[in-house]
């Protein structure tokens, strides 16, 4: 099914709109979203709360269904893509099952997808190593720190080798020091696996540091106000954040956010 | 409000099942009687007969409804001993028996709630009491109360306690436990931060209790009161069962059983369930008002 001629386009949205029916009447969560994401890109969605960035990510993962426009993932409707295991999803909270060990949690999607026992063991060992948690497989989630839990949840999303990794403010609840280290590790992981990553955040430095493309959104109705292609190199040490180029992009993001607010 | 349709559907389904079961369970008697009389019965006759037996294994819903109507409205308004004729409730009406049961229930509920709260206060404040008493509180509930209810009544009668109080004591025995468990949880509901805050004010234990523990336990109190009042009703009915010829829904159940008046048993059962549901609803309504006033709308 993969469209090999235009192989680079992974996610494509054309005029996507989404309305929630709420107790106070309909709420326009997304309006006229058009966007293309290429293979191997690291795309951040940034904006104030209520701008629909999470909703957009959920629509891509077929957790919400748009009312208008077309949205395709790997050239398929999102739920088809989901069934073909197109993506791993990392939520705001780690959401690990307290009754399973770390290894048990990581292999949960593998069990659901019907991987053999041997293959499960092999993959669990590999991804735990990838997120630097080898040796913790037999621990229970509540015996680990918040940062380790979130790494385990990333390992879980990586375990079944989806091409696309969708992350919804995965580090939002962590302190800044842990967050910096996880950001750095995430970049390494991205380089090592060359996945396409969609990343929701409300931190400007995080977005600029991680992304190749930054999608700035604004609320009521949720829409895209700016798309910024990052000019930073793919190799990014932590201190790149002090460079003029970094600050320049951050400035542009801030301007975009401010422009969105002018509508209020 | 959107629950009305589903509830009606379920109730309707139950009634349909009930009618089916009525025919199935009572058919044997009809066939036996026909065999004893030496006649053949067809299916339609079986159905007709099973729905109208005088002492069926399972009375049909309309029989129970008729009995309920008969033993409330008709008895009080038109009966020889009804409230219209005599000015007092008739001893043949379920209203009278329900009232007797209700008064013992309320008294027992009051005892049980008071006892449960006091014990909970003791347990929260004394480690020794917590550790020594709690296992026995659980064990106390495994004593088959119905088995000793007659003895409780006899023993209390021998020291001159009669009437409502023995029943109320059995009711209290069953209702104190849920209240105790709920209130221990409730008094411990304030988190360490809130307790530490009061400690920084050098608040006394009593003050901490009144200002923090008591208000935070209110939602737990109501949750356990709902369980407790239903338990108190069960206790009262259990207390009424052995005391054969006295009044109350339990005595009514027993005498119905004694004379094989299944219709009367079911009517008394439904009356008891309605009473229980009504009491729980009332506690729920009070809960909403109180929690609303305290700004803890649940």
């Amino acid at each position, binding site marked *: 099914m993969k469209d090999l001629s235009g192989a680079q386009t992974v996610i494509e949205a054309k005029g996507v709109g989404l309305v929630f029916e709420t107790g106070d009447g309909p709420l326009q969560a997304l309006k006229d979203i058009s966007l293309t994401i290429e293979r191997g890109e690291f795309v951040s969605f940034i904006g104030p709360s209520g701008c629909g960035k999470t909703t957009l990510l959920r629509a891509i993962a077929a957790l919400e269904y748009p009312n208008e426009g077309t949205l395709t993932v790997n050239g398929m409707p999102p739920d088809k893509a989901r069934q073909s295991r197109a993506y791993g999803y990392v939520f705001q909270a780690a959401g690990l099952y307290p009754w399973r060990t770390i290894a048990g949690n990581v292999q949960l999607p593998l069990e659901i997808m019907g991987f053999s026992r041997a293959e499960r063991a092999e993959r669990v060992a590999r991804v735990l190593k990838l997120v630097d948690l080898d040796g913790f497989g037999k621990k229970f989630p509540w015996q680990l720190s918040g940062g380790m839990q979130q790494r385990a949840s990333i390992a879980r999303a990586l375990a079944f080798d989806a091409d696309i990794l969708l992350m919804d403010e995965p580090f939002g609840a962590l302190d800044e020091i842990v967050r910096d280290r996880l950001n750095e590790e995430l970049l390494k992981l991205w380089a090592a696996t060359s996945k396409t990553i969609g990343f929701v955040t409300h931190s400007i430095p995080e977005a600029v540091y991680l992304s190749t493309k930054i999608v700035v959104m604004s609320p009521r109705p949720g829409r895209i106000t700016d798309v910024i292609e990052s000019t930073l190199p793919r190799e990014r040490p932590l201190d790149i954040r002090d460079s003029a180029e970094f600050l320049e992009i951050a400035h542009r993001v801030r301007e975009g956010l401010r422009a969105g607010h002018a509508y209020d | 409000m959107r629950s009305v349709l589903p509830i009606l559907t379920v109730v309707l389904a139950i009634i349909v099942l009930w009618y089916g079961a009525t025919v199935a369970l009572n058919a044997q008697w009809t066939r036996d009687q026909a065999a004893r009389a030496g006649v053949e019965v067809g299916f339609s006759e079986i159905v007709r007969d099973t729905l109208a037996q005088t002492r069926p294994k399972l009375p049909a819903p309309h029989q129970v409804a008729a009995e309920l109507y008969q033993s409330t409205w008709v008895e009080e308004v038109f009966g020889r001993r009804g409230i219209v004729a005599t000015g007092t409730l008739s001893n043949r009406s379920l209203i009278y028996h329900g009232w007797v049961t209700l008064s013992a229930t309320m008294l027992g509920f009051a005892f049980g709630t008071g006892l449960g709260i006091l014990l909970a206060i003791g347990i929260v404040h004394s480690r020794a009491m917590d550790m020594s008493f709690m296992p026995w509180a659980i064990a106390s509930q495994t004593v088959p109360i119905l088995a000793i209810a007659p003895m409780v009544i006899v*023993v209390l009668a021998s020291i001159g306690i009669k009437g409502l109080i023995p029943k109320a004591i059995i009711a209290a025995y069953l209702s104190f436990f849920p209240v105790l468990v709920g209130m221990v949880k409730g008094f411990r509901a304030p988190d360490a931060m809130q307790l530490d805050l009061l400690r920084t004010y050098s608040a006394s234990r009593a003050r901490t209790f009144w200002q923090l523990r008591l208000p935070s336990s209110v939602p737990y109190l109501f949750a356990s009161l709902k369980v407790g009042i239903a338990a108190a009703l069960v206790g009262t009915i259990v207390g009424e*069962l052995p*005391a054969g*010829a006295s009044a109350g829904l339990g005595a009514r159940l027993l005498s119905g059983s004694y004379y*094989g008046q299944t219709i009367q048993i079911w009517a008394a059962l439904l009356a008891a369930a309605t009473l229980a549901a009504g009491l729980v609803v009332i506690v729920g309504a009070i809960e909403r008002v109180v929690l609303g006033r305290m700004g803890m709308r649940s």
Partner: protein
Amino acid sequence: MKRLMTSVFALTAMAGSAYAADSVTLQLKWVTQAQFAGYYVALEKGFYDEENLDVTILAGGPDIAPTQVIAGGGADVVIDWMPPALAAREKGLPLVNIAQPFKSSGMMLTCLAETGIKTPADFKGHTLGVWFFGNEFPFLSWMSTLGLSTAGGADGVTVLKQGFNVDPLLQKQADCISTMTYNEYWQVIDAGIAPDQLVTFKYEDQGVATLEDGLYVLEANLADPAFVDRMVRFVRASMKGWKYAEANPDEAAMIVLDNDETGAQTEGHQKRMMAEVARLTAGSNGALDEADFNRTVATLMAGGSDPVITALPVGAWTHAITDLALN
């Protein structure tokens, strides 16, 4: 002045009456029904008042043991059957029979004719419903005189603890059930089974009858002349009530009905019960017949390996009260 006089007079009169009436508490063996009509008649017709007694009648029930009530001091006098009373005496609770209004036994075993049981010899291998709670003694004695084991099996009978009603027979869970001539038997008939579809075995006819409803008090109390005096008056008024009830069964039944707190009794059933009970009380003037007592004791002691009582009871009855009350 005149008004003051009247009120003082009224006060003294009230006080006088309050002091005069001696109180007596009577514990029944079972729920309010015509089985106890004599006492209710004496209460309603003022026979107790005439004797200056203030009588409280406590109804019984399936789990109320009159013996336990009197041991706890909950009643001055109780109505019970002789077997549990003698058993209690052997357990160390000295009960004494002071009067015996019931001359004959109303207990019987009622079987469905379709089970093929025609004589007691046919019981073997069948299921029999029995009341327990102190009422099982006559049955156990009878079975042991018949040489039937009550442990079940082909050579014995299977015993069910019958509930409070006749359902086991109607639902065919038991082949025979215990009934009283004045009560449960008629419930079976009322349920729609014709008398010719039933076979009954009266304990009286089988020679294993034991004395039923009698009045029992604690032995120690009989040493107190005031107590004896109260009992004399109580027995006299009660027997007057019984004789009135025998003569006016329908009125007696209505009096019982009005005293039934549960409101579960029906007029038809109580009138019929009264008529049947009258047959059992007919031969008694209230005094215990020593021959009946001896027969009861003999039956109970014949209980094979597990007799109800092991030693001949001494002092378990007295004519002291009835001699004074009836002469």
